[in-house]
């Protein structure tokens, strides 16, 4: 399939150029033409006033020989369940929930894949929605190294041919899953925020933000299997654990795995409250309005009270008030907690890109015109140094 412009009829009006998200259209000699940046999103087709941008099928790729047999050989939904130090990441439970929903629609089964951790941890995944758990407890998986993780997952996929593979869009998942997709020559969609099944074809519709969250795109992987997606933590709903669920743990042998990296040590950020922003249900974030590093001490107290984590805008990180690992936004982390409290953050589009999908956003800012209020569920106009101590006091009163 290709998108072409009928140059004979093109008036060179340039409407299509303004519509193209990929800078893929240029005007040459008064006519539009599509360059190699084209991603076939078809946006230009709908805006062309002359209707001269059309989609044409390439000869030969209409039907890959034996395509339907190939696709039919790949069945089932797999969830890569990530662990750190033997503990299953919370995104893994969310993906099991999402996997169940997809599997029921496709009338197939859910398998979890667990590297490292104990057999008990593997068995526990059954109650969270897995019908089968492929578990490799080899010590090589204790620490995260990309190569053995990728090779092991590849070999399991080759042996068992799942139709869909989901993994968390975490530092770990986003690092090693691309190797798997590269080697297997299949599609990988990063950081999905929604997954659906196309009723007609049974293909996985993978929905994800692009352009720093300014645009959403639906991605398909129609002719290669498995369809692999990394999924953003905290956007899928986990199902209730059912300890009576039946399932099977399949122990897997690691065999010979190549590993040319070595984890020397693992260091946690030392902070009283948690720093893993993508797992936090409540995030208290500070911006330039916090005035100094001391202001963040106050936010930490608030975060501890709410059982949450502390985040920051780029402005606060650039000032050196808090380390980069806490930064939320286009150049930091993307988070989606249940509650996001933005304190003294003006709400630049780059910051909004990292937090606007939070369930509830509370904005505290002394400038009533600050753009953060446009994204907020609740807004308080006031000085953070005045508002937050009162909030801390009220919350403490409630706890007694």
């Amino acid at each position, binding site marked *: 399939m290709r998108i072409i412009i009928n140059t004979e009829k093109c008036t060179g009006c340039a409407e299509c150029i303004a519509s193209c998200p990929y800078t893929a259209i240029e005007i040459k000699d008064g006519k539009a033409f599509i360059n190699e940046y084209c991603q076939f999103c078809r946006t230009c087709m709908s805006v062309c006033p002359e209707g001269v941008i059309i989609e044409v099928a390439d000869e030969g790729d209409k039907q890959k020989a034996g395509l339907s047999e190939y696709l039919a050989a790949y069945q089932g939904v797999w969830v890569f369940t990530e662990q750190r130090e033997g503990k299953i990441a919370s995104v893994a439970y969310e993906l099991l929930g999402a996997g169940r929903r997809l599997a029921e629609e496709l009338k197939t089964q859910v398998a979890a894949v667990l590297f490292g951790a104990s057999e008990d941890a593997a068995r526990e995944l059954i109650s969270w929605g897995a019908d089968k758990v492929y578990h490799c407890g080899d010590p090589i998986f204790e620490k995260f190294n990309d190569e053995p993780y990728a090779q092991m997952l590849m070999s399991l996929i080759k042996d068992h041919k799942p139709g869909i593979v989901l993994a968390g869009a975490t530092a770990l998942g986003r690092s090693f899953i691309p190797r798997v997709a590269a080697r297997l020559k299949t599609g990988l969609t990063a950081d999905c925020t929604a997954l659906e099944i196309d009723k007609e074809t049974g293909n996985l519709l993978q929905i994800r933000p*692009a352009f720093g969250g300014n645009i959403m795109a639906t991605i398909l992987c129609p002719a290669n299997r498995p369809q692999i997606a990394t999924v953003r933590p905290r956007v899928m709903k986990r199902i209730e654990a059912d300890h009576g669920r039946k399932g099977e743990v399949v122990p897997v042998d690691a065999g010979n795995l190549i590993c040319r990296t070595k984890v020397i040590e693992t260091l946690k950020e030392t902070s009283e409250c948690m720093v893993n922003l993508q797992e936090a249900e409540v995030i208290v974030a500070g911006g330039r309005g916090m005035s100094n590093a001391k202001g963040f001490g106050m936010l930490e107290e608030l975060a501890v009270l709410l059982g949450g984590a502390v985040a920051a805008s780029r402005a606060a990180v650039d000032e050196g008030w808090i380390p980069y690992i806490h930064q939320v936004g286009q150049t930091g982390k993307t988070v989606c907690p249940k509650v996001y409290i933005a304190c003294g953050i003006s709400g630049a589009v780059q910051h909004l890109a990292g937090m606007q999908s939070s369930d509830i956003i509370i904005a505290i800012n002394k400038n009533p015109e600050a753009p953060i209020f446009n994204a907020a569920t609740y807004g308080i106009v006031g000085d953070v140094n005045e508002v937050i101590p009162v909030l801390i006091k009220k919350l403490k009163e409630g706890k007694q």
Partner: protein
Amino acid sequence: MNIIVCIKQVPDTAEVKINPETNTLVREGVPSIINPYDLHALEAALQIREQTGGKVSVITMGPPQAENVLREAVSMGADEVRLISDRAFAGSDTWATSYTLYKAIKKINYDIILCGKQAIDGDTAQVGPEVAEFLNIPHIAYVRKIDELASGTIRVQRLMDDGYDVVESSLPVLLTVVKEINTPRFPSLKGKMAAKKAVITKMDMRAIGAEEENVGLKGSPTQVRNIFAPQLKSDRRMLQGSVEEQVTALVKELRGLKCVLS
């Protein structure tokens, strides 16, 4: 050390918006820039060269106008630049892009390949690790510091979700870097002069030895089906009254949510 830096020309995404009425992109006057993370990769490469000697080669895959970002790379200090460009590359997804870069990189000598952690238009963070897999070399993603570099090994700090790991790797290796790793330098006057005169090596599909069925749309397992505007919240409530009253109202609302403040 010979270092390759992969860079990408991207639209300045902070400026890209969707028109909610027509569901099309408004990108009038949106400038094209070097992907910001790639500047940090280039800076890291230049610092390694200062320490060990060697050569910094920069490559980009893109349309002819991507030449601009290569000239910018020369102005910062890159020794040689290559533009991988062919109409056949149209429609490349991350798989086809990685394959194409791999084919081009295979023609160059290297000890280390550096990439930005992701490009700000696609935000996938996939091309770096995929290139490493194609080349059959290890990679380390989200590198925030290079601790030590000796002949044959490198030790770096890798950012994880809950802290960081100190990781050692044999060379050659591919690293993707985060912004924390350094502050990119500004082009020098001498660099700007060099950029004007720089010879850009252009390579097409045949020159890199890529197979047609693996590049562009044909080589891309994924397709973009459609794009649309994200939905914005419309349930905003500004709280009223004194600070005390506003906070009281907020705490009441928060208590209504079972998830917090149980």
